[in-house]
């Protein structure tokens, strides 16, 4: 199987879906001639023309709102928000419109649209090119929120998102873009939205994570194996809807749960995951549910020592697992 980077899996999924279905088109800032500031849409304008790879004016609300209208019409827009931080001007269109279209019209209208956005830090991006914004959307019924961690999942989940009949926010961790490589079949396949995956089996401590920190958890698990601690790692993959069954199963597996995310602790998805476990797998627990997350500060600072302090890493995750294991 070919090995490719996380971002190449994005591009491949886009290309294959555009080939498969004429209604699929891409719109966003610099997605055309420039091929995206991260090059995620590289080569698409050459293949599909500027009508289907649309450079829009610098207006996020319009990008999202036009996608709402076009998707109601029957198109399959894939909108790119250049950085997740810049999704804020589009919140009204996403939350008030896309998320509520099906419900408010009693199923007459719906928005099969995707909003792709690179998120996360560790790239010297400072406050506004490093944010994790998922928690603002995982409280919004009507949306789906997807955060893949591997190239395989990127391709399979992005295809599912494009084929989904409802609006999907597809958050790509920008640090993973070129850092994470993996096997990706050339064939057409999908990964279902709403399904978590056990990325590593273990017996002592369960780590539940997604995105870049999922890789930190895997690294930590490798290290801890040498120390005799067996770590079970669940990749949430989809944050809305959460895969409750998989969460409860993973929690019950070891009775000790550590939830890890880069997004700041308070109000993060970890709270919801913890609450699900505390309500439904309470008697399976052998220790308090622990969360390890980004600090509760407005966003990630630029200066290297501050960025480093903000970011999680395999050591910080390993330490938290060790503590739980010893509990």
């Amino acid at each position, binding site marked *: 199987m070919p090995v490719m980077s996380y971002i190449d899996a994005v591009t491949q999924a886009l290309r294959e879906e555009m080939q498969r279905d004429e209604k699929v*088109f891409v719109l966003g800032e610099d997605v055309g001639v420039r091929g995206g500031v991260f090059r995620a849409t590289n080569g698409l304008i050459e293949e599909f023309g500027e*009508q*289907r790879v*649309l450079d*829009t*004016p610098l*207006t996020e*609300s*319009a990008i*999202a*709102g*036009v*996608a*709402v*209208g*076009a*998707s*109601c*019409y*029957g*198109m399959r*827009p894939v909108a790119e928000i250049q950085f997740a931080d810049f999704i804020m*001007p589009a919140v*009204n*269109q996403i939350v*008030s*419109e896309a998320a*509520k*279209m*099906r*419900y*408010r*019209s*009693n*199923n*007459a*209208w*719906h928005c099969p649209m995707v909003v792709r956005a690179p998120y996360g830090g560790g790239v010297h991006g400072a406050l506004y090119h490093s944010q994790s914004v998922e928690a603002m959307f995982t409280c919004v*019924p*009507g949306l*789906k929120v997807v955060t893949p961690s591997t190239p395989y999942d990127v391709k399979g989940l992005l295809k599912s998102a494009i084929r*989904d*009949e*409802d609006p999907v926010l597809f958050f790509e961790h920008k640090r993973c873009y070129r850092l994470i490589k993996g096997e990706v079949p050339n064939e057409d396949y999908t990964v279902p939205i709403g399904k978590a995956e056990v990325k590593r089996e273990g017996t002592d401590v369960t780590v539940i994570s997604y995105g870049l920190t999922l890789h930190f958890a895997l690294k930590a698990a490798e290290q801890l194996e040498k120390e005799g601690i067996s770590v079970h790692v669940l990749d949430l993959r989809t944050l809305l809807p959460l895969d409750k069954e998989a969460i409860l199963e993973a929690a019950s597996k070891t009775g000790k749960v550590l939830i890890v995310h880069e997004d700041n602790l308070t109000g993060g998805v970890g709270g919801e995951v913890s609450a699900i476990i505390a309500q439904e797998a309470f008697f399976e627990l052998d220790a308090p549910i622990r969360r390890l997350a980004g600090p509760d500060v407005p966003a990630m600072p630029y200066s290297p020592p501050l960025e480093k302090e903000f970011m999680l890493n395999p050591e910080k995750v390993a330490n938290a697992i060790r503590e739980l294991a010893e509990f």
Partner: protein
Amino acid sequence: MGKSRHEALGLTDEQVLDMYRYMLLARKIDERMWLLNRAGKIPFVISCQGQEAIQVGAAFALDKEKDWLCPYYRDLGMVLVFGQTARDQMLSAFAKAEDPNSGGRQMPGHYGDRRFRIISGSSPVTTQMLHAVGVALAAKMEKKDHVALTSFGEGSSNQGDFHEGLNFAGVHNLPVIVMVENNKYAISVPVEKQVAGGSVAARAQGYGIPGVEVDGNDPLKVFEAVRTARERAVKGEGPTLIEATSYRLVPHSSDDDDRAYRQKEEVEEARKKDSLVQFKKYLQDSGILTEEKEKEINDAVTKEVDDATEYAEQAPYPDPKETYTHVYAE
């Protein structure tokens, strides 16, 4: 003798009578809703009163078989012309299961109807602007010859989405008609405190597109402006901004009390220019609306509203379980 104004526009006597009938129907439905509200039978009304000429004039200029609408909460006249009925309105006002807009989920005035290509609207104002641009973009991509018309109030035209939408449509030369229904107030805020410079139409120039001011009390003038805009749009000449000015004859909604912020005299003055009064006079003067004809139309419209009210009042509510359906595709 020269042609009458409507003939000059290529409209037959039947068509202008039909226009009048729709305007009257909209008015009567609206008035009935206020009565029902004051009688405690429906919790909320938001009115088209004073804007019927704009809505009906515009809708008549469109192709009801293929054009798309992204209207706003006052556009009762428009959605009636496109195919919704008095019964549909009453089902919505009573929030009954059969309401075609939302199955009783949304407040009245939140139009949406797949049958007639009316995209479901929300309450946050001006968002539909961008939906119309999206539909117009799709039309261009798919090489279709339909247009999308969107409308909202002059207050709403100050939202960021207005600017982003006109600019997007202008850059990509999209077949969209943006119609601002200037009724002089945004709830209590008069247009002078709302629209810097005083003219919404003047903003069109900044996007390199035509900006047309039109008397919103005259359905024929609105018809003409929208028809011209539609012709441009389908020829690939891009968007048009139309500002149709009239007056909001009643309070903002059944929750409002307009005595706090405007004089009775001002409202009475406006009532004299009411499009229903003026257009009726035009039709009478043209000899089209005879006394007999008028009675016939009036009776028919009243009966339609009566029947609709009765039907809707007796229609069943949605099942409480409906609360949980249609969050996602099922």
